């Protein structure tokens, strides 16, 4: 390096030349990445019968004709109240995952407690090709692809048909018209191109989009040409609420073709699944 006065100084290079340290750092980085990846891995835990069927089939897949996924507390509550309320459903598995909002992996092999946010699978006893999934836990964006690949990868694609029920706040619904109170909650639908047949409600208008698990599932079905239909319910209530759950009733038409449903529902059953949180009930008069 030349200075103003003409002298030449030798300069030490600032590049670190100690290769050993570099390697250690890289290894440490890699180790940390790997640890985080393992921690965030999505695990599906099946019950012994289903695990056995998976092994027995050559391709590690289950025969499934209809998969119904409920994403959100109201969708899950609707299925619990209207579909899973008979005795003929068995819990066959759950998904265990960890992220900042869902800390499930501490009990990977133990099924989640009732009422806890979780991702549970149920199968109908008389018609074991019908699978229901209730997802009430938060699945992070980086885990969505894994979840979808692992869950839908367990099922044979041939003859599979998927229905997704999902909740969304109405504040995220974009429309040029003003929504009067009586219109909410309401349903909108989206289908994969392999899905023939009429959806039971108007299609989701532009520029509204889906995000999260419903979007991941529908994208997977679109790519793999699986007929799939999604019903998104826009509601203005944060907690599980019986009126929002009743909005999913049109889906019962499809479900009743698959499994026997209870014909009528007492208000008590619905109220069990709808929680009136204390804050909500005293906040507004």
């Amino acid at each position, binding site marked *: 390096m030349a200075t103003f006065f003409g002298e030449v100084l030798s300069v030490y290079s600032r590049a670190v030349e100690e290769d050993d340290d570099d390697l250690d750092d890289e290894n440490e980085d890699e180790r940390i990445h790997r640890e985080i990846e393992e921690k965030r891995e999505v695990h599906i835990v099946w019950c012994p019968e289903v695990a056995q069927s998976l092994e027995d089939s050559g391709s590690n897949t289950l025969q499934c004709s209809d998969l119904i996924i409920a994403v959100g507390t109201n969708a899950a509550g609707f299925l619990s109240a209207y579909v899973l309320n008979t005795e003929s459903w068995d819990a066959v598995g759950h998904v265990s995952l960890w992220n900042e909002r869902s800390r499930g992996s501490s009990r990977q092999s133990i099924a989640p407690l009732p009422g806890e946010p979780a991702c549970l699978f149920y199968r109908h006893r008389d018609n074991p090709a019908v699978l229901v999934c209730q997802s009430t836990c938060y699945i992070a964006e980086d885990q969505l692809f894994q979840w979808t690949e692992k869950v839908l990868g367990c099922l044979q694609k041939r003859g599979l048909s998927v229905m997704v029920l999902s909740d969304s706040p109405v504040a995220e619904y974009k429309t040029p018209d003003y929504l*009067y*109170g*009586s219109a909410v909650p309401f349903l909108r639908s989206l289908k994969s191109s392999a899905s023939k047949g009429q959806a039971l409600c108007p299609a989701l208008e532009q520029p509204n989009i889906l995000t999260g698990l419903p979007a991941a599932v529908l994208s997977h079905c679109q790519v793999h040409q699986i007929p799939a239909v999604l019903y998104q319910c826009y509601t203005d209530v944060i907690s599980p609420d019986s009126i929002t759950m009743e909005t999913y009733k049109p889906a019962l038409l499809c479900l009743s073709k698959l499994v026997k449903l209870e014909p009528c529902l007492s208000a008590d059953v619905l109220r069990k699944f709808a929680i009136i949180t*204390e804050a909500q*009930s*005293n*906040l*507004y*008069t």
Partner: protein
Amino acid sequence: MSMSYDRAITVFSPDGHLFQVEYAQEAVKKGSTAVGVRGKNVVVLGVEKKTVAKLQDDRTVRKICALDDNVFMAFAGLTADARIVVNRARVECQSHRLTVEDPVTVEYITRFISSIKQRYTQSSGRRPFGISSLIVGFDFDGTPHLYQTDPSGTYHAWKANAIGRSAKTVREFLEKNYKEEHMESDTDTIKLAIRALLEVVQSGGKNIELAIMKRDESMKILVQEEIEEYVTAIEKEKEEAEKQKKKT
């Protein structure tokens, strides 16, 4: 587009909206329905009673509040905001009596409440009150009044109106069924309010609370039996109207 203009209360959006005020009106819709009818000799306020928790004392869940001997009001929206507004209005009623030696007119106290609400839409660091109210009463010259205020601080006089959850349905019912000549009769005025509420209230009369005030009398909250009597009479009239329709 609206996102950046709806945080601060004191900021207009490019198309002239005050979003916080409009959102406050959404909070009003979360409250249960209240209906008000102005008759010739009686003013009526009816509200949908909230279901209270089992251990809660339901005397403390009041939607209808007296502001003075000649004025009372019902609100819909945030409970705590309503308490503040009602307290300030009550103090103002007494202050008016002390200063002017006359009870407030319904319009005066309505204007006072609306001014408070408007002030909160124009100062930063505060949010609008999330309530709409129906204010009824008699002036000292005996004229009955019904006013409605909303979170923006506007107020208008009405012959009959509704606020809260299913206000639109109730208002449409009132527009169809309000008859000037019926307002001469106290019973018909009360029945109109009850009929309007029955349109939207689940499980009938036991979820309705009604308060009436006749000229030169104080506010009276009807007991459950009286409300049931009116409901029975209304149902009978409905049946007879159906029979008449079938005959013709």
